[in-house]
């Protein structure tokens, strides 16, 4: 970023190109200029920032575009030291207050974040006189945007307020929770989860009990579905004060009502926050809510089932295994055949996490069939999700019981038409290899790994080389020399030059994992052969590949074997080859 140059006298600032670009007609110029404001203010010093810069900014605030105002709100958040500390912060707060009243959500959010950051650095007195009063002003505004902005700032204000001040702030917040516009009610409700932890349960009950129940019955779906998170936060706050019973009394009816809400979006929120709620009310109380979760797993709306399916392991971890087997597992058996692939996909990525909970015997007895069914799913995503979490199962029961079905599933995915699916499968091969012995792996999956080297998609070929590198790390050098290298040599003789490029990639990627003996005996000859390739791209690739080998070669080999080859390349008819050869020679 180019630092703006600043003159010494006031009029110089007016003439400063950076300063002028703040009022440039081109919106992009203004936006860029605003992003450098903090640097500029730092250079001109606090006095002139206050005298000249801030008044200009307040002009900009009046009617500039949102694209300019959003970064302005961010920059203003850094202004506390730049105006010379909190005694001069008032005009900055005033500007941010104006931005927080904006009807554009992104500007408001930035302004609120900046206000919150500045507020946290203010001393007690200034905080109360400037910050808290600002929050109150916003909350008492006539229009909804400032009220929405006030809601997140209440948490900051309450955090540092005396009990007396809280008495003043809380009724105001309660009022926001009952605002006539749904926008304000939403903002107020969603910030309750930040406010409850700051308050004593008695205070919460005193101020928020009625509002909590009102919000839970709000006619707007978008308000009701926030209450689920609020209930979870309420529960954990009460439990932190050892008031578990009271919290259950408050949370349970609301969760039950939300879980049976007519709107699927509200039920969705219960499903996706179920673990949060369960943790809030504790494992014991959760037992009594299992049927609610089971109903969500059977919900008529696929989105709800998807959300619930992703929470199965999280909820099960809180229950005893017998309960999981009797109530949740039957549902899972049904979800395996769900019509919606999103549901099955979510299930596949979560259900394996049950294995550690069930243990060896339980997994074999109850879960194995579910895994195998999902592994045979029609949709690649589902199978992939199973394979990606396979280590969770194999560390419990080992791979033996799965391999019979696993290998065909992997082979099928490896040949999927979608290259992204193939790419994902390759990534899971090395962790899988760790659990197999070399012979078994080579027999079952070896061909697959070598097949990818010749894939038609470049990314797959790259990933396959990386895969071979990881496999070498897993199985050791013998595997590379005995199994991989013959294939690579074969590849280097292919007529398609792209395959020979893959060989070069292999040389630079895998060599570091090999011993010097293997390097000298196998890799170096390969690289030298390719240096005389008819295709220029291969020749200069070989030059670069040779360069990567230098640190591992003896001085003698370098001078006697490599140098002559590079010198030949340096006299090549192709300019790029000469360039790379010269580079390599220089390194030599």
């Amino acid at each position, binding site marked *: 970023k180019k630092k703006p140059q600043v003159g010494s006298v006031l009029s110089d600032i007016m003439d400063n190109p950076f300063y002028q670009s703040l009022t440039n007609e081109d919106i992009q110029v203004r936006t860029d200029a605003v992003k450098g404001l903090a640097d500029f203010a730092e250079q001109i010093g606090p006095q002139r920032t206050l005298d000249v810069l801030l008044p200009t900014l307040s002009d900009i605030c009046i009617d500039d575009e949102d694209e300019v105002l959003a970064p302005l709100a961010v920059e203003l958040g850094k202004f506390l030291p730049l105006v010379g500390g909190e005694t001069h912060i008032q005009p900055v707060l005033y500007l941010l207050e104006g931005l927080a009243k904006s009807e554009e959500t*992104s500007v408001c959010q930035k302004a609120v974040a900046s206000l919150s950051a500045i507020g946290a650095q203010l001393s007690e007195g200034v905080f109360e006189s400037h910050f808290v009063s600002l929050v109150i002003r916003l909350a008492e505004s006539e229009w909804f945007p400032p009220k929405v902005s006030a809601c997140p700032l209440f948490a900051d204000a309450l955090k540092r307020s005396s009990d007396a001040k809280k008495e003043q702030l809380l009724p105001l917040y309660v009022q926001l929770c009952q605002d006539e516009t749904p926008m304000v009610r*939403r903002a107020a409700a969603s910030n309750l989860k930040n406010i409850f932890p700051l308050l004593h349960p008695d205070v919460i009950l005193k101020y928020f009990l009625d509002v909590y129940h009102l919000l839970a019955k709000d006619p707007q779906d978008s308000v009701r579905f926030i209450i689920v998170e609020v209930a979870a936060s309420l529960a954990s706050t009460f439990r932190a004060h050892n008031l578990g019973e009271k919290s259950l009394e408050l949370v349970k009816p609301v969760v039950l009502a939300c879980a049976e809400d007519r709107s699927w979006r509200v039920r969705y929120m219960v499903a996706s926050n179920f673990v949060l709620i369960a943790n809030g009310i504790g494992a014991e109380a959760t037992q009594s809510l299992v049927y609610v979760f089971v109903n969500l797993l059977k919900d*008529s709306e696929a989105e709800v089932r998807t959300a619930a399916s992703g929470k199965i392991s999280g909820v099960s971890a809180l229950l005893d295994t017998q309960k999981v087997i009797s109530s949740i597992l039957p549902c899972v058996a049904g979800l395996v055949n769900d019509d919606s692939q999103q549901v099955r996909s979510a299930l596949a990525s979560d259900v394996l996490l049950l294995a550690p909970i069930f243990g060896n015997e339980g997994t074999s007895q109850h879960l194995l069939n579910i895994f195998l069914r999902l592994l045979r799913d029609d949709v690649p995503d589902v199978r992939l999700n199973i394979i990606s979490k396979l280590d969770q199962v194999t560390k419990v029961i080992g791979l033996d019981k799965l391999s019979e079905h696993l290998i065909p599933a992997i082979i099928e995915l490896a040949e999927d038409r979608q290259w992204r699916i193939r790419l994902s499968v390759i990534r899971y091969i090395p962790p899988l290899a760790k659990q197999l012995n070399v012979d078994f792996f080579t027999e079952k999956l070896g061909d697959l790994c070598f097949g990818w080297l010749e894939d038609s998609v470049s990314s797959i070929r790259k990933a396959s080389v990386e895969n071979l590198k990881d496999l070498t790390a897993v199985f050791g050098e013998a595997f590379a020399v005995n199994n991989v290298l013959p294939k690579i040599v074969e590849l280097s003789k292919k007529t398609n030059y792209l395959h020979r490029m893959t060989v070069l990639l292999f040389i630079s990627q895998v060599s570091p994992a090999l011993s010097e003996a293997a390097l000298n005996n196998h890799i170096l000859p390969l690289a030298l052969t390719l240096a005389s390739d008819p295709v220029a791209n291969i020749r200069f690739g070989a030059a670069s590949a040779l360069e990567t080998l230098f640190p591992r070669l003896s001085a003698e080999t370098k001078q006697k074997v490599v140098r002559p080859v590079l010198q030949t390349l340096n006299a090549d008819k192709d300019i790029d080859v000469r360039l790379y050869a010269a580079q390599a020679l220089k390194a030599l």
Partner: protein
Amino acid sequence: IRDIVVPALGTTFPMESFNTQFEKAANKFYAESPSVWDFSQMFGEEDNENSDDDSQDATDNYISSLAFDPQGELLAVGYNSGQVVVLTQQDDWTYQLYSEFKSHDSEFDCLTSTEIEEKINMIRWYPFQSQGQFLMTTNDKTIKLFKLWNKGYVDDTPDIGVKQRRVFSGAHAYNINSISFNSDGETFISTDDLRINLWHTDVSHETFGVVDIKPDDMEELTEVITCSEFHPNDCGLFVYATSKGVVRLCDLRDSALCKGYSKTFKDTESDIGGFFQELVTTVSDVKWSPCGRFLLSRDYLTMKIWDPRMDSRALRTIKFHDHLIPSLCDLYEDDSIFDKFTCSWSGDSMRIVTGSYNGSFYVCDAFGSHITQMTAAPPSAPQRSNNILDSSHKVLHTAWHPSGDVIGLGAKDFGFLYLKQQDDSESESEEEEEESQ
């Protein structure tokens, strides 16, 4: 289900007998305060010179949509030319120019090699008040959200800023016919011939399809969506109407994709139009009553009031266009039968208005017991011909002030405002004022 408060009457009706009591009240209201409307003002200029030169230019000045803002202080008028004119209410209930801006330009869609007209198909105001006013406009493909705000005063006249805040485009394969805000203040729907999309007002890069009636095989296409609207305060409900004369009620709460619908309203009793039945039953506009209790649908020959709780038949069918029936053949030949007339509710949900040919418009109570026919024309204008089919002067667009008795009408390039006559004493004093002015 709640008891309904009707502010205009200051009464709360119990749920059970709502319809009968409401009807009684509406009748009484109508009887006590006769529906006499006075011409208030006319806007728009007839540009004769241009229309002689180039007929295209003449239709450019045609009004294509009308909308009062939720407070009734502003009236937005959209034109075929993509221009939006916003008028502001004065103390004497007349409206004067507030702001004017170009909302849409014509575009060329390179993918389908078609011209996208700049015509404003619909204007909707954001239902909540804040410092600035927000309005949304749409042409066939692109929806735009604008902000209007008062920058300050220059010589006592407000300096109005207009800013385009967001553009929602690329989501409709067919032509957009309507847009409607949700009561949650953050979402809206946009409707084309076959699909309805749900948007968040802050997010223009993604939208969710909630209704899709496109058949797998387009050969099997039998109906298209003509319009849709969200319920005024129940955030999950919206209705859409189709070319088959059907109004369907959907509930967003039921499922993410409204494959089915909660209720369907179709008039199976009346059998008019004969050969043209399918054309005349096409619903051209559907509107929720502001109280949320009733639905009003407009087709070529009638208006129908529906109680959403009763899908067996229309609560009332208001027939005011029967005189067109003998001439349907002529109307078909000059394409008039495809005219899309809109309709509007009064703010108190007790009266409705719709337009017709020959400058006529009809105001009636919500139960169709009293129908008042009037002609939209300045008092000084010469008597119009008696040709009831005169389609050169048709009132296609209507809008009713949300709280007062002001009706906005759009007929070709002219807009008209009508004011309901007040009690005698008041109108006299108004006249006096006018005289003194």
